[in-house]
């Protein structure tokens, strides 16, 4: 049960055309840049995996990370709450040209749907989006005199996430606000693939401080000194 993979390519094995891929990160914090770019490189070299559904809070910024996936043409659909950024050109152009689909989900609903997917809760009710366009076509119900929208769980074939520490059993910690959606996505994906800044021996992470228990993690690859998306963009990365 050693979940450590020797290379990024090993960690990413088995991601196929048409799969759904959850990608951790909120803005640049937590974006698993090395995993994403290895996948983009594979797509450019082999034409696969394409037609992906990508689930993330945002829809890429500049030309790195998810934006690079969109520019490469491997994303068929984005599921996100906020497909804008300081430089949203990659998504905006593709969306307005009809080359990419968008499922817009309120941020808290997105988080809860992913958690529900990981927790075996097929549907739940939330007040968020009641009475709005976003709720059109969804069942509604009243509880204690207040109206709610029924939302379904969200699962994925794969999650790509960035952790700070990881051990061979899959236990993870995150760095500051880079935590965001990643622990939820680890729960909700059939295969959870992690790039960790440092791999440590089991027992090194205090059992009280584990954020994602190993049961939610399938593969880990060590990526020391990982790129930080926002820092990359500010350095002028293209």
């Amino acid at each position, binding site marked *: 049960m050693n979940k450590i993979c020797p290379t990024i390519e090993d960690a990413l094995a088995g991601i196929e055309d048409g799969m759904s891929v959850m990608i951790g990160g909120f803005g*640049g914090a937590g974006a698993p840049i090395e995993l994403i770019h290895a996948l983009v490189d594979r797509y450019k070299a082999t034409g696969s995996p394409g037609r992906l559904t990508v689930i993330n809070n945002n829809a890429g910024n500049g030309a790195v990370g998810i934006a690079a996936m969109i520019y490469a043409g491997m994303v068929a659909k984005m599921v996100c709450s906020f497909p*804008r950024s300081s430089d949203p050109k990659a998504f905006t152009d593709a969306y307005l040209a009809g080359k990419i689909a968008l499922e817009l*989900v309120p*941020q808290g609903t*997105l988080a*809860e749907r992913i958690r529900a997917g990981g927790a075996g809760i097929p549907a739940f009710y*939330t007040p968020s989006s009641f009475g709005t366009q976003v709720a059109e076509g969804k069942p509604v119900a009243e509880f204690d005199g207040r109206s709610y929208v029924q939302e379904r769980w969200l699962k994925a074939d794969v999650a790509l996430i960035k952790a700070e520490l990881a051990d061979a059993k899959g236990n993870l910690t*995150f760095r*500051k606000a880079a*935590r965001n959606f990643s622990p939820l996505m680890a729960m909700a994906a059939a295969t959870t693939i992690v790039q960790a800044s440092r791999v440590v021996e089991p027992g090194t992470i205090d059992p009280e401080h584990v954020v994602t228990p190993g049961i939610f993690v399938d593969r880990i690859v060590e990526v020391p000194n990982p790129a930080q998306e926002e820092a990359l963009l500010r350095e002028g990365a293209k």
Partner: protein
Amino acid sequence: MVVKLTNAQIAWRAAQDLPDGAYVNLGIGFPEMIATFKPEGREVTYHTENGILDFGEAPPAGEEDWDLINAGKKAVTLNPGASFFHHADSFAMVRGGHLDVAVLGAYEVAQTGDLANWSTGPGSVPAVGGAMDLVHGARQVWVVTDHVTKKGEPKLLEACRLPLTGVGCVTTVYTSLAVIDIVDRRFVVREKLPSMSLEDLQAVTGALLAVGAAVGDLIVPEL
């Protein structure tokens, strides 16, 4: 001619109403200015959707840690007693009624408390973020906004025309001309600029204004 409040002055006025000990979420952009004007001696804990409670001011330029950002993707710092948590826990705080105040911007606000602040209609890329959760979670939902659009059209209306963010959710509107509470599906003027009559205010408002007790003077410092 009435000199309307600047955004900074609107933010200042809203900040005066922050309750001591409150947990507050400030929306991206204009609402974030409110933190700058928090009255001395009042303790307010700020929440950001992306998983931080009790964050502080921006760090000095060059000292940013881009893993330590707020929902607007701006670098922040931590106060002693801060905590990190994942997005589901973060929105449990929001949706579960644990925030005292959420402050948002608006395209339109209706007298029913309906808010439109996420979409200007077809043709653009829609983006909703956390607003639809925030408006149904916090105990009080404040809007800070110019009283009218750039074209001079009223933003306070009988009913919103743009796509809604939430139904019956706004509790108070801090505008460039007035402070208006929403009570029983009516706009109730709490304060207005002293240089302006109620009739003047009514003329730039798209719904009937009610008056509760006395209408106070909306007085703010030069900023």
